[in-house]
């Protein structure tokens, strides 16, 4: 089966007058593929290249070396709108002063399906309502997004991405600002979308346990390189995690069947680290 998206020896360095970050950073020789229907979790410390990877995959940035392919076609040969019909991104949030309602936000996800249209047509409205229904925010449709709580805002933003009707859903730290209940909800929602619709998911997260819980495979990045790619049990290795993150951890596997659990051992540094 051909890959849905594939990075082939991709290298990238931010220019000296960095627009996005202050200090120099580069990705080097990054190769991996996302198969249709799978959930891939991307983990790694701060500045390991997780957000850059999303920007490259969505053509916000162009790779300096190598190439990225979507459905076998080079990314640069895709038009922006066509790309947005295949890949939808759930960003970390929207600005505090975002003035639109939930329904208006979700309808924005219909833009790539007819960029020349001034108003959305009834089919767009139906697609938006289906997306809101899928994430449970249909009742909130007329409310201003700024008036919602963290978990509801997150579900509204995911609904906007679903309204794009993508093949690949990319989430950037979806649980960064959410409490435990919404973390569990988000995990359940992603699994349901994956199983019921065959939606392919790329989940970028700081939360190792969420990634291990949801993902079929994990991609561990360290300093812009692939440290390991494989099943959660292979990647969440005590010594590997310790060396990449620079702190001591314990990995437990419950009853040999469930996903591995990473536990931080506070105050116990690793050799060479504090």
């Amino acid at each position: 089966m051909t890959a849905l998206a594939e990075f082939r020896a991709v290298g990238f360095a931010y220019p000296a007058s960095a627009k996005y970050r202050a200090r120099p950073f580069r990705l080097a020789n990054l190769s991996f593929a996302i198969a249709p229907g799978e959930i891939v979790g991307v983990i790694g410390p701060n500045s390991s290249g997780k957000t850059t990877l999303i920007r490259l995959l969505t053509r916000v940035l162009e790779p300096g070396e190598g190439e990225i392919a979507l459905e076998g076609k080079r990314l640069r040969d895709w038009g922006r709108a066509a790309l947005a019909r295949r890949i939808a991104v759930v960003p970390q949030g929207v600005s505090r002063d975002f003035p639109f309602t939930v329904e208006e936000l979700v309808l924005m996800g219909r833009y790539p399906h007819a960029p020349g249209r001034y108003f959305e047509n009834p089919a767009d409205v139906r697609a938006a309502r289906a997306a809101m229904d899928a994430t449970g925010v249909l009742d909130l449709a007329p409310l201003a997004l700024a008036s919602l709580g963290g978990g509801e805002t997150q579900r509204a933003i995911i609904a906007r991405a679903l309204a794009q009707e993508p093949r690949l859903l990319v989430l950037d730290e979806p649980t960064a600002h959410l409490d435990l209940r919404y973390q569990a909800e988000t995990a359940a929602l992603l699994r349901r979308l994956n199983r019921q619709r065959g939606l392919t998911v790329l989940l970028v997260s700081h939360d190792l346990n969420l990634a291990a819980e949801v993902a079929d495979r994990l991609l561990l990045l360290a300093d812009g390189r692939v440290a390991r790619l494989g099943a959660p049990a292979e990647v969440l290795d005590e010594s590997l995690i310790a060396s990449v993150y620079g702190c001591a951890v314990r990995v437990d596997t419950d009853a040999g069947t469930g996903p591995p659990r990473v536990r931080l051992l506070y105050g116990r540094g690793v050799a060479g680290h504090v």
Partner: protein
Amino acid sequence: MSPQGRLALVLGGLVGLLVAVAAAALFLGSAAISPGAVIGAVTGRAAAESVERVVTLSIRLPRIAVAALAGGALAVAGVAFQALTRNPLAEPSVLGISGGAAFGVVIGQSFGLGLTVVEAVGLTGFAFAGALLAAAAVYLIAAVGRAAIQIQTLLLAGVIVGIFFASAITVIISLLDFNRLGGVIHWLLGNLAPIPPGALGLFALLLAAGFGLVLSHARELNLLALGEESAQQLGVNAERLKLMIFTGAALLTASVVAFAGPIGFVGLVVPHTLRMLLGPDNRLLVPTSLVGGAIFLLVADTVARNVVAPAELSVGVITSFCGAPFFVYLLRTRYRGTL
């Protein structure tokens, strides 16, 4: 109600109001002409060289047209700059763009350019160059070396650039023969004096081009509220969008400054009033601001012409008297949390 329905309803109401206000403005003025005589002039029953005919058709009617065009253009430019900078208080005069355009016009006038059609093209060119200069200065001050433009920094940069160009204009006026720039003082506060029909046609054409650029990208402007990166990931070519919107808004501003002077605050008062009525959707705000701006400036000009008759106030005085308190109101209430 669907957005289409709300647009049709509000736009219809505004067009009706504009017609009523324009008709009323035709009857009001410092020359005492009876309503019957005005009707006579409009319906063609007045003698060709009669006072009522000249006043009604050659003075009041062209003035109404200039006021409506300039007001609509400034309001649309306000919506465009607000969406482009994601700053609710952005507006051509607050951002210093009007000041830069005025500087360009004064330079053009010092070369002797007037309002014949050919010269008016040159004058608008000078105004557009001045607007670009001011925008570049504001951008350099507010954006270079920063990851994101802060709202406060952008506003301060705009105010500073505006002050600088106001001083530069004063220098040029001081250096030149005052007779050559006799109308400048009046023009600097906004002068909607009738302009020749050829120039009026050119003015309308330039505004149509600027309005078309903004209107055709109204949906993308909504997406820009998500941030540039998210807009790109939804299929918007953000760089091209910003260029198109900036060009359209600068063209609207520069044309108004060249033909009627740097009238302030229209781009703030009108879009925000409509936002309270219609919400944040730029697809509704752009067309309704065109008509709403026309109404606002027409009312302001009619007040300016009549409140101290037989003398006349500059229309910019009226818009500033409305706009400055409105700016403070927005600052203290609606955008308190974000500024």
